[in-house]
Every structure is written in structure tokens, then in C-alpha cells.
């Protein structure tokens, strides 16, 4: 374990964070929010100083290997959440734990909130809230790898640790270029959505903040009523489209830029993902029309589509209180929470790709029951999946469900009902945001005890970093010399 190199790296990460924290200063200045402006300046200065200190302590540093990589990624996310919490705390609106919850919920693109009266908060702070989601969506480590070309061989491992999915594709021979391409794609898509939302009649502030939380599949909104606040089907459609885009593998968009648009249509994971959205929306629409008290088919369909896309992509925006929907629809949405988006997207959850590999692997075991000498490979889109990946997928399922089960167990301890606890656990672990019952889309997370909020922060980190990295840190042999 090369502690000094790790510290130096984390110090540089904090410098980037300090830079990010100075963006809201401009927003505060524009809206004349003096107090918030000072808060952000102070936060940025403190983050920057801590960064410089760590770099100083770290000295010249050295090579990064796997262990350092794991520590950097996990510690990086913890530090970002901690320093990102400072503005919430300084604003005086929330306590320390609540501030950390809100910050972690932002960076991990969960979108669960403890704010009870969102619209009374300073606009600069709400801008930061959405901005953290945008940073966390494509990933702070990936951003870091994209910004710094000289990270060396360790960078590839860092990248793989943060990019979600069973395998992280690299589009360029150099991981720095891959990360840069991904961030560029992300940036262009963001620009496109901002322009479309402006055209749909939103002001720049609303357009930007909602773009941040759409493309990152975060789900924070500076409006109390979320996307429903605009009362515009056009805005809803734009948001649906970009949620779906954000929930798919970003390397496919890179392929489009390279005039290989067919890759998108042919990608097996993307096809299944779109098929799931279509099927679930259809089923929910039918359920809403027959049992949900909806009168108009277009309204029922748009609400169904929006909620399904929002949950499957783990965004967590709401245009309807799906908690009041019939049981079938609610159950379907919970099912989608577990699945999540595609590998290489900004979405959370188990990922469609893992589901496919997991199911195929289970079917393979069935077949091996009666013909044990057959050699069966698992194919996705005509390509054989390496067995190491299949194994890691199986392991991931176990760890994911254990995390969810233990989380639920701990949340019910305070006497909270099962539906609330179980859905809150998956809503945070899957980086979705809203759950059912007391954590439904019209509710918030303020009522939980501090210990439970901290547990949910842990679940959010576990979900965002896909369990393995954090699990590695708590195994004894990791630290053994």
C-alpha cells in the first residue's frame, strides 16, 4: 500500500472539486445571494487548501496499483460527499448528517432528499445540488482521468472501478482518451438537452439544473413538484428521451459519432432495455386505465412512460405520485428499480447486461445438469462473455442482494414499516431516489434517524461503486502486508 501516492492523488482530486465548488459562486452572484456566495467561496477555499495539504504530505508520490486504486476511488467518493456537504451545512438549513445525506445523494445520483421545503433554499445551493449529480453521473474519477493525461498505468484500473457494468469498454488505446471522449459525449448531450428545454420554454436556470439531473440519472429538481411543476407534456417528453439516453451505454453514442449508428440498434443490451421500457409502460398504461382511475389514454400513457423510464434509468423524477397507483404498477416499478440501466451508462441498479448474463448463466447450469461434458459459453450479441465476467456477475448478485437485505433489516429497526424500509433500501442502493409509502415520490427522507441516514449514505456509495470496491476495503486480507 503506497499511502503517500494515494494521498497525493486524493489531494489533486480535491483541487478539482474545489474548482467545481466555485461554479455556484457565479450563480449566487447572479441572483444576489450574498450569504450563499460567501459559503461557496469558503467551501472552495477550504477544499482547495486541504487538497494542497494532501499533495504536500504526499510528496512525489509513486506508482499506483490495484490496492491504491481501490482506496482512491472509495476515499475519493467519501471525500467528495463530505466536502460537498459543507455548503448545505453552512446555509444553516440542515444539520451535519442531513447535509452529508443530501451531498452523497447528489454525487451518487440517487436523488433522495431530506429537504422539506426545497423552493425556499437559495438558488445557488440548489444549483450545486443538481451540479453534484452531473459530476457524479459520468463519474468524478472518470473526470479526473479525463483531465489528467499523466496518471500512468493505474488510471485504467481507476476507470474500471468507477464505470458501472460487468466490463468497462475502452474506446481508445489510452484510457485518458477514453475518459475524455466519454465526458465530451456527456457534455454535448447536456448541451443538446439544455437547448431543447430552453426551446420548450424553460429559463436557463431550470433548463440547466434539470439537464444536470436528467443526464446523470440523478433526479434532483429545484422545484418541489419536480418535472410536474412545468405542466408541459413537451418538457416531459424531452426529459423522457434524455433519461433513456442517459440510461444506455455511452460508448454507443461514441460509435454514432464515428458513423456506426447501426451499433446502437444492434446492441443486444440496448434493445432489451428499450423493450423493457416499452413493455413496462404498456402494462402500466393498461393497469392505470383499468384500475388507476385515469380517463385519458394519452395522459395515462405519458405518466406511465415517464415513471417507468424514470425508475428504470434510476433517475427518480416524478410527474405523478405512483405510490397511489394500483399494486401491479407499483410492483412493476419496484422490479425495475432492481434492474436499472445499461452497463457504461450513468444509471444505477444491477444493470441490464448483468441481468442478461446472470439469466443465461443460470440456464447454462440447468443444461449442464444433463450434459456435463458440453462446453457452453455465454453469448451476448454473438460475442462470448469471458467466464471471469460471468463469475463476477454471480458474485455481484449475491453482494447486491445481501446489501439490500441487510439495509432493509437495519431500516426496519426503528419501527418503520416494511414497505417503506425495503423500498428505501433499494431506492438508495440502486441510486434511484424515491421509493414507496413514506419514501414515495411525494415524500422525503427527513424523518429517518441519523444512524439510518448514515446507513443509507453507505448504501448509496455501495450502489454507485457497485459494491466490490467498498467490500474489498472491509476484508482483512486487503490491509495485510
Amino acid at each position, binding site marked *: 500500500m503506497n499511502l503517500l501516492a494515494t494521498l497525493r492523488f486524493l489531494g489533486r482530486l480535491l483541487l478539482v472539486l474545489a474548482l467545481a465548488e466555485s461554479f455556484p459562486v457565479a450563480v449566487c452572484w447572479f441572483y444576489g445571494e450574498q450569504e450563499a456566495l460567501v459559503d461557496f467561496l469558503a467551501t472552495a477555499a477550504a477544499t482547495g487548501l486541504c487538497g494542497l495539504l494532501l499533495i504536500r504530505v504526499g510528496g512525489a508520490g509513486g506508482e499506483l496499483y490495484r490496492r491504491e486504486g481501490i482506496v482512491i476511488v472509495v476515499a475519493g467518493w467519501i471525500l467528495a460527499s463530505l466536502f460537498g456537504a459543507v455548503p448545505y451545512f453552512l446555509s444553516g438549513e440542515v444539520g451535519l448528517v442531513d447535509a452529508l445525506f443530501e451531498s452523497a445523494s447528489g454525487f451518487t445520483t440517487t436523488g433522495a432528499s431530506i429537504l422539506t421545503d426545497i423552493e425556499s433554499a437559495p438558488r445557488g445551493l440548489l444549483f450545486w445540488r443538481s451540479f453534484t449529480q452531473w459530476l457524479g453521473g459520468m463519474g468524478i474519477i472518470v473526470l479526473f482521468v479525463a483531465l489528467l493525461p499523466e496518471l500512468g498505468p493505474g488510471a485504467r484500473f481507476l476507470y474500471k472501478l468507477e464505470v458501472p457494468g460487468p466490463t468497462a469498454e475502452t474506446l481508445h488505446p489510452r484510457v485518458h482518451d477514453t475518459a475524455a471522449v466519454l465526458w465530451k459525449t456527456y457534455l454535448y448531450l447536456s448541451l443538446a438537452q439544455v437547448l431543447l428545454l430552453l426551446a420548450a420554454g424553460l429559463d436557463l436556470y431550470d433548463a440547466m439544473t434539470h439537464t444536470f439531473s436528467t443526464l446523470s440519472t440523478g433526479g434532483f429538481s429545484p422545484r418541489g413538484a419536480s418535472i410536474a411543476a412545468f405542466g408541459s407534456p413537451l418538457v416531459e417528453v424531452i426529459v423522457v428521451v434524455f433519461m433513456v439516453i442517459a440510461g444506455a451505454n455511452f460508448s454507443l453514442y461514441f460509435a454514432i459519432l464515428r458513423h456506426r449508428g447501426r451499433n446502437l440498434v444492434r446492441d443486444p443490451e440496448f434493445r432489451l432495455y428499450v423493450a423493457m421500457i416499452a413493455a413496462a409502460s404498456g402494462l402500466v398504461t393498461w393497469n392505470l386505465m383499468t384500475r388507476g382511475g385515469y380517463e385519458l389514454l394519452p395522459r395515462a400513457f405519458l405518466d406511465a412512460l415517464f415513471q417507468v423510464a424514470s425508475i428504470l434509468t434510476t433517475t427518480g423524477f416524478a410527474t405523478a405520485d405512483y405510490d397511489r397507483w394500483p399494486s401491479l404498477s407499483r410492483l412493476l416499478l419496484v422490479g425495475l428499480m432492481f434492474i436499472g440501466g445499461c452497463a457504461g451508462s450513468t444509471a444505477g441498479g444491477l444493470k441490464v447486461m448483468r441481468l442478461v448474463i446472470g439469466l443465461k448463466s443460470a440456464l447454462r447450469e440447468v443444461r449442464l445438469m444433463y450434459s456435463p*461434458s458440453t*462446453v457452453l459459453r455465454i*453469448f451476448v450479441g454473438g460475442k462470448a462473455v469471458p467466464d471471469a465476467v460471468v463469475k463476477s456477475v454471480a458474485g455481484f448478485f449475491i453482494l447486491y442482494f445481501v446489501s439490500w437485505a441487510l439495509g432493509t433489516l437495519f431500516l426496519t429497526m426503528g419501527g418503520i414499516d416494511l414497505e417503506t424500509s425495503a423500498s428505501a433500501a433499494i431506492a438508495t442502493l440502486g441510486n434511484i431516489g424515491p421509493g414507496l409509502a413514506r419514501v414515495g415520490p411525494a415524500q422525503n427522507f427527513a424523518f429517518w434517524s441519523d444512524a439510518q441516514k448514515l446507513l443509507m449514505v453507505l448504501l448509496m456509495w455501495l450502489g454507485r461503486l457497485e459494491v466490490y470496491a467498498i467490500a474489498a476495503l472491509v476484508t482483512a486480507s486487503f490491509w495485510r502486508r
Partner: protein
Amino acid sequence: MEKKRYVVMGAGEVGFHLARTLSREGHDVVVIEADGDKRERIEEIDAAAVIGNGAHVPVLEAARVDRTDLFMAVSSNDEANLAAAVLAKRLGARRTVVRVAVAEDVTTHRRIYEEVFGVDLLLSTQLLATTRILNHILGHNTLAVEYLARGKVQLRKIHLEADSVLTQRRLRDVEMPEGSLVVAFFRGEALFVPAGDDQAEPGDEALIVGKTETISRTQRILSRSPRTPGAVVICGGGATGETVALALAGQVDRVRIIETDRRRAEELAARFPDHEVLCGDATDPSLLKAERVAEARAFLALTGNDERNLMASLLAQELGVPRVIALVDRTETSHLWRKLGMMQVVSPRSLASERVREYIESGYSANIVSLKRGAAQVIERRLAPASPAAGVTLAEMSPPRGLIVGAVVRGEKVFIPRGKDRLEVGDTVILFVQEEHVPTVQLLFPGREPS
């Protein structure tokens, strides 16, 4: 017969077999061999032995390659063969034959090898064995195959019996599948380009051109051979097994490959999603029984080990597989195999030496069409902007009867052109040309052969 001087590099199975036959015919044969222990064996067949690495100039000089008509680099080492061929040619050998292992080098990349290494005949033992095995199990009568347009198009010479539709109906009444064309019939020594009214006779040979994906289907229709039902079991997933498995894809109901090595089996399973790969020992009767190999239509023993092939074939025969084909490396023992009741024994080595002898007998023509001494040839041309054929439909061009545009390759697409099809700049055309029309080709399609 005129006495010639030949140099063979490599006294392995192929080289040795070749050297012996040539020497028996009364030619002077020099064998270059790295292993000094083989000297006596070489000298026994009345050939001169030069001990050393054939890819070294002094060794080639000692073998006097400057005085040979044909230098045959047929050792089991591809790189050495290629290097030796280039050097030998530079030192004055008139023609070179090079043996490579992988079939794809011949089917797809032949032209590059020919160009870069000055190879006159490139052959792959794997490919020869595969063609022969396919004949056996698919009931094809393929005499020779030529791969064109980077393997996308094939030209096949097939033997016609009375059961073929081509011998029963006039050509215009034969329903040819899309993507294939009959370009010529051979009758005795004569070659003619058939018109719609023509009909082949039993014993004729036909030349068909077609897309690689569909030509086997065409051949099945032409030879009226029933589609082979059931499974084909391939024992041994080495290079030959893999090539055969690839060629069988889509030709039979099911292909099952038995491979001993776990890692190799996984590779094959990844390569062939539609085939079934079993990991196990094909000489283990309980495996063959458990996997119900007896129900297979054909069993191919294609491991690199003669003894294992023998063992597996005997077991398969015992289990009642109707057709058993075994690969044999040691050419001297193949007659013993036949004694054991193996109906079909394929020896890649003797196939290779047969191919070389065919090449020599044809007067050094590697092209399968011009086996009949320059009567016709196949020419591949890329359409240059200046070409008069560019932008013209086939009907407008109305080429003479002895000039057939057999296939057009446009990007990744291959098609057999009809009258209304227009040729475009950049297309690669495959032309079948009778000797007297070669000047017309130069006129219509100026330029060089694409590589």
C-alpha cells in the same frame, strides 16, 4: 519424359512423399532438411540431401536453387517456407511452391502472399484436407476450388454424374439458386461456354462460380445430393477440426466437436455459437455413449495424433456411425487403415503432394481453369474510373460469349450480375475469359489484379 531438377525444402511427411514420387519418376531431387539424422532416409530414396536451414542463403546455394524449375518449401514452418521461397526466387529458382498451415491464408489472403513473397502456388494442407472431407460427408464432387475476392467468391470445378440436373435438363431450364452461375463445361480436353440450350453429359466437369455462403447449397442442388441429416461429430478441435467445423456451418443439421483440452474447448465454444462443443476424450467409450455419438450421421477423427484418430474411429464404427472419416498423417500406414475397414482415410500430406504434382503436370498453372493449357482463365479486376465498363449495364456492354462477368464485389457485398446490373468504379469484377478474348478484357477493364 524430360528430366527436371527439383528442390524440396523440408523432409517431413509432405516433402518426403513429394521427393520420393518425383525421384521415382526419374527426376533429380534435392532435399533441404534441418535435421541431419534424416540424411540417410533421404538418400535412400535416391535424392540428394542438403542439411541446414532452408531460409539461409548458403544452404539454398548449396542446393543449387538457381538451376531448378520448381522450389518447393513444404516444411511445417510457415515463416521458414516463406523466407526460403523469397530467397530461392531471388537466387534464380524459376517457380516456388509454399505450404502454409492456416486455410484462411489461402482462401482469403492468397494474393498478398503471392505478391510479397513471389509465391507461384500457395497451399494449405488444412484446406486440402477440409475440401476432401467435405466431399466425403456432403456427397459433393468437388475436384478443385479456387478462392477469389478475398475468399468471398469461389470457383469450383465439379464432376457431373447422371444424377445431376445439369445432365438432365438444358441449362435454361435449370433453376440456379441466387448468387451462382455455371460458367463452363469441360468435356474431355475441350472447354466450352454453354448457352441456354446446352446440356451437360455424364462424366463432364462443370465450372461454377458463386458466393462463398451459398455455393455449397448450389452444389447440393446441382448434384442432387440429399441434405445430410443428423449430426456430424468432429473429434479433435485443432486447426483442421476448426476449419472443417467452419465449412460445415449451415451445411448439416448439427455439428458437435469433441476436444480434450478445456481451454481450447472454450475457445471453440466461443467461436461457434451454433455448434456444440464437448470437453472430453473421444477415445473414451463411455463419453461417446453418454453423448449418444452413435446417432451421428458422420464421425470425423481429426486430432493431430494418428493413434487417437484410429482408436476414436474404431469406437465410432463399433457404435454404428454410418460414415467414419479419419485423418492420417503417416502416409505409409494409410493402407493398413483401409484394411481395418475405414472407408475413408484423408491424408493431408499426400493431398498436398498430389496438389503439387498436379501443378507440375499442368505445366505450372496454379489456376484451376487453365488446367486445360491456357484455354481459359479467371481474371480479377478492379474497375478504374477510366474503364469503359464503368457506369455501363451488363446488357449495354454485351460482352462476347467467351467473356463472362462471373461476380461483382462492391464493398462488403457480392453479387452475380444480370443484364440490368450496372458496374461501378471501384467494383472488383471476377471475369471468366476464354483465351481469344483476353485482349477484350484489357480493353474493357484496363488495370491490374487487385490484391
